[in-house]
């Protein structure tokens, strides 16, 4: 499925946070949305998910404006994982992941296996009966990821999903996202780890001050010049065992 933004402007409290963004997210592509704090990554992803109305421009899914989609049908196409890990009540892990099946009304059969599969993928099956409020930050992050995986959408938008995860679970997560993209899904994730972005993503959208500074393959976007402009850092870019490594070495 194709999710596109054209001339997208999004405002929060009358302050324009995303300005004139035109991108098209395609299937079979794992896209990283990078940028410094306050660049507009979260707002951009929320607008793409249809959670924020554009102040100008439009977001379309399969050519149809996202606001015109039926909300339940849209929920079967776009899964969104927010940056804030909000839990208001101590639901069990299993129930929390099970909420991902809400758009389908299929708790008995397909839903059951989707929930089990998502819990296994995110390595949370072993504490399925525990209240989510009793989990560590990393465990909770994995449970919430499992919830969005159980939603089984063609498009997955995740806002800093790797934050708080240990290195093993970060790699598991990125491998899972890469596999989803390879299977035909459209996956876009906001993240800060430049090396993981370079290693796993086919495409990188670099934002600064709400605008697209660069959009392309990791080789073309993760350059010393663009990283200096976006983040104000000097970075060393190398390859170790054939894998790209981007190391911030100092402030400009």
């Amino acid at each position, binding site marked *: 499925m194709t999710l596109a933004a054209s001339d997208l402007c999004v405002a929060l409290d009358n302050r324009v946070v995303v300005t004139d963004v035109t991108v098209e997210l395609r299937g079979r592509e794992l896209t990283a949305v990078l940028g410094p704090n306050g660049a507009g990554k979260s707002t951009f992803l*929320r607008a793409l*998910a*249809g*959670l924020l109305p554009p102040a100008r421009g439009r977001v379309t899914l399969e050519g149809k404006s996202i606001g015109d989609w039926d*909300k*339940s*049908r*849209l*929920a*079967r196409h*776009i*899964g*969104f994982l*927010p940056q*804030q890990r*909000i*839990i*208001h*009540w*101590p*639901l*069990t892990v299993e*129930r*929390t992941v099970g*909420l*991902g099946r*809400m*758009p389908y009304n299929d708790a008995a059969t397909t839903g059951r296996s989707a929930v089990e599969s998502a819990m296994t993928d995110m390595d949370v099956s072993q504490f399925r009966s525990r*209240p989510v409020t009793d989990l560590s930050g990393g465990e909770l992050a994995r449970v*919430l990821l499992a*919830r969005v995986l159980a*939603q089984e959408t063609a498009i997955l938008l995740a806002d800093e999903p790797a934050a708080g995860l240990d290195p093993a679970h970060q790699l598991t997560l990125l491998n899972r996202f890469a596999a989803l993209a390879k299977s035909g899904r459209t996956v876009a994730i906001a993240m800060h780890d430049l090396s993981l972005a370079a290693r796993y993503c086919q495409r990188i959208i670099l934002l600064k001050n709400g605008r697209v500074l660069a959009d392309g393959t990791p080789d073309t976007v993760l350059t010393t010049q663009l990283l200096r402009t976006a983040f104000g850092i000097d970075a060393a870019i190398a390859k170790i065992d054939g894998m790209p490594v981007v190391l911030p070495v100092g402030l400009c």
Partner: protein
Amino acid sequence: MIGRHRTEMLLACGLIVCFAASLATGPAGFGFPGGADAGWLIFSEIRLPRAILGALIGAALGLCGAALQGYLRNPLAEPGLLGVTGGASLGAVIAIHSGATALFALALPLGGLLGAAIATASVLLLAGSRSGPVTLILAGVAISSLAGALTTLALNLSPNPFAAVEMVFWLLGSLNDRSLVHVWIASPLIVAGCAILLTLRRELDALSLGDDVAANLGLDLAKVRLKVVAGTALAIGAATSVAGSIGFVGLVVPHLLRRFAENEPGRLLVMSALGGAILVVTADLILRLLSPAGDLKLGVLTALIGAPFFLWLVVKTRQEIGP
């Protein structure tokens, strides 16, 4: 299936027992003494309306408390938070103050319903169409405070001491002297309000993960908000209009039952409705036996139960989070 719904089934059985006890017991004794005619009169004119209203009002209070706690994601939310109770109380007090109740007995519940409707419309208008839970709480508290101030003004300016006493007694909440007419006035609205709230089970569960996740799961947040307000307004407006203000039930019952619902706000709805009904029917039955003349009011008894519960909650919370 039965295992998962065991608590609901136990509560339903408990309600049937309490309801039957309420029908069979009163100041005249157990059963229906005084011959067939007198017994039938006691049953149909006194005990049946009280038992039905007690069950309906208790269910409304418990259910609305659970729905509001789930929607506002605040364990301290209770049905009076949206200003409906305050509005209905003000409407009823104005009906007494203006002398309308002397001319037309049903002016009291109808005044309450009108007050509840005006308060609900004011809260919605004040909160705006796109507001979130916090703005809704603020608007509810503002309208509730205004209604409370106007109620005390009406008491202050009461035309005579008897009217003042009538207003105060009504505000304390009671099922004394309620007839089947009151049942016919309140029950359709309470049932409609409860039915609306019971459609929100999955929505309240989804809101546990925040507004963004709930919206991403396909929820229309504006529609959910409207259903919560409309359901609460209908059920609590009608309940307060016929029985006055009965506090603490909507706060205490969901708290007590939350762990049996595995903290699922949606599952808590039915349990709280049943639990609220049991509490109010039982409290009314105790009152009838302890205070046959109706000196002790239902709202006072529920408050006497509720306040110690709060104290227990403070002690428990302190033990859990430390000094």
